[in-house]
């Protein structure tokens, strides 16, 4: 084990290097490129002797090649971002439907138009219903750790589904942070050799993903049940990860929730700044506020979320994403999760940080104050924190 300074992109590449996949199909896109460049350099230096690296002509081809390779039993890694992830979208359903344990790092970047290079979570959450399992990391250590866990979970015979590990572009992908890189021996102990279960082989010709009639529902149901199974498998894998590497993960990340009356629900790297703001508000103002970070987006860990929020009086769901005409994407998911509880908190919605709009401690404190007001008035709010949407001229082309 060694401590070293690496970017989020390099952390994902380290995950792949430690796993030693058979095949890495790639196509570059900002802010993911550094990840595949790092892998390409290591491969040319002989660090991944059993890995075949491909540069394809598009992300659609990347995922198609990943599906083909995984279907013959290869262990596959790839990475993409933003428009590239959208271009893969069609094939993502195929990968999940064919139950192929591909692992992909996604580096979140806002979607066009207009073009932004900076981060929000619409690209990642757009894949929410694709059948993939979805992790979202808060920092670079977690990126590496989740890539390792993703292979164990994906390849478990109770699951056999592809897994995405998301990080925020720029804020993590291009930021150096100190992380611990585990030894290959520890990874070997954690992740057994991959034994493919339902693959095409020379002596065992099979058809995968053919047209079906009545069986369609059964295959879809299997995808669903396998994804539900993944919750239990994730918990087992996280226990084992702790045993071997000494770092503890859970389905959700709980921060100062024991006595929290107010809870901020967050995703990704903004959680770090939110935690700093929470510590300050507790120390300086005695506000009983805590944080629940969504680490696993699919399958939806409903029980863990409900358990974590059961003592809260008011919850702010902070969405760094937008479903236009609907609002924040995770807000209704949280509301639904709490709806049938005997005692449920008031839930407000905040859309923040689109296209990299910085999520500062100051803004987190602002949201917390608004949530205190909501608790007092008893009326939850649906609001944007960075801009006023109540008085907006939709034909003003000057922007903000």
């Amino acid at each position: 084990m060694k401590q070293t300074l690496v970017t989020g992109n390099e952390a994902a590449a380290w995950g792949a290097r430690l796993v030693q996949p058979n095949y890495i199909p790639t196509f570059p896109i900002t802010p993911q490129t550094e990840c595949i460049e790092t892998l390409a350099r290591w491969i040319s230096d002989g660090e991944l002797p059993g890995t075949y690296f491909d540069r394809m002509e598009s992300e659609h081809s990347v995922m198609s090649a990943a599906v083909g390779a995984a279907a013959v039993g290869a262990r596959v890694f790839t990475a993409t971002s933003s428009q590239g992830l959208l271009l893969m979208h069609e094939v993502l359903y195929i990968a999940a439907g064919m139950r192929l344990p591909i692992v992909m790092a996604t580096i979140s970047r806002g979607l066009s138009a207009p073009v932004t290079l900076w981060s929000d979570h619409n690209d990642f959450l757009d894949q929410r219903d694709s059948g993939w399992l979805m992790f979202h990391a808060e920092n670079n250590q977690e990126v590496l750790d989740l890539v390792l866990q993703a292979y164990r979970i994906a390849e478990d015979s109770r699951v056999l589904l592809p897994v995405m590990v998301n990080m925020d572009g720029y804020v993590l992908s291009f930021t150096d942070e100190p992380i611990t890189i585990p030894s290959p021996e520890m990874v070997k102990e954690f992740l057994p050799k991959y034994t493919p279960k339902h693959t095409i082989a020379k002596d065992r010709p099979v058809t995968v993903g053919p047209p079906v009639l009545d069986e369609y529902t059964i295959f879809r149901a299997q995808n669903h049940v396998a994804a539900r199974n993944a919750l239990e498998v994730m918990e087992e894998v996280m226990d084992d990860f702790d045993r071997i590497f000494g770092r503890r993960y859970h389905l959700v990340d709980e921060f100062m929730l024991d006595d929290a009356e107010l809870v901020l629900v967050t995703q990704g790297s903004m959680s770090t700044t939110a935690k700093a703001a929470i510590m300050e508000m507790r120390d300086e103002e005695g506000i009983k506020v805590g944080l629940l970070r969504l680490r696993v987006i699919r399958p939806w860990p409903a029980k863990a979320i409900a358990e974590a929020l059961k003592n809260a009086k008011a919850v702010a769901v902070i969405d760094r994403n937008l479903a236009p005409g609907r609002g924040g994407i995770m807000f209704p998911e949280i509301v639904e999760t709490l709806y049938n509880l005997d005692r449920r908190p008031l839930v407000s919605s905040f859309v923040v940080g689109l296209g990299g709009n910085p999520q500062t401690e100051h803004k987190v404190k602002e949201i917390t104050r608004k949530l205190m007001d909501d608790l007092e008035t008893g009326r939850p709010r649906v609001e944007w924190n960075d801009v006023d949407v109540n008085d907006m001229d939709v034909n003003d082309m000057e922007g903000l």
Partner: protein
Amino acid sequence: MYKIRIHGRGGQGAKKAAKMIGQAAFKMGKQVQDFALYGAERRGAPVMSFVRIGDTPILERGYVDDPDVVLVLDKTLLDLVNVADGLAENGLLLVNSEHELAVDTPATVKHVDATSIALDTIGKPIFNTTMLGALAKFTNIISIDALDWAIEEELFNYPKKMIEANKTAVKKCYEVAK
């Protein structure tokens, strides 16, 4: 926490300088975070990079808008960018320049001719690494020894001669800076 902001133009190595400061501070046992601001980055365009250094894990993210130190790799940026924006009153503004410059800031303003030092020692205008010698002189956040290590770490894929020339330039800049 100690915060540094670097202003340069695309291609001048503002990102590399931030990485080297980060590596040096990390080598000295500090918690570190460094990154570069990307956007329409291209050769010649104004760019920024940032370093945060602390004794405990860094919980702040994003741009540094209240730096303790600002490094300016290219003095022509002073006409384009408010480089002293948010700089602490007791902070330091260090500019790569052969002569003294008037900057509107209560902070201490220093200059060092890193371009000439780089041309003399490296033979190329590699002033991003060179300037770090002056940073080591004026602050105690990084040492020359740690910088030596950082240069080897960050320039690992360059010829040995280049690495040594960079180290020499940093030491020369340390001696000259005042």
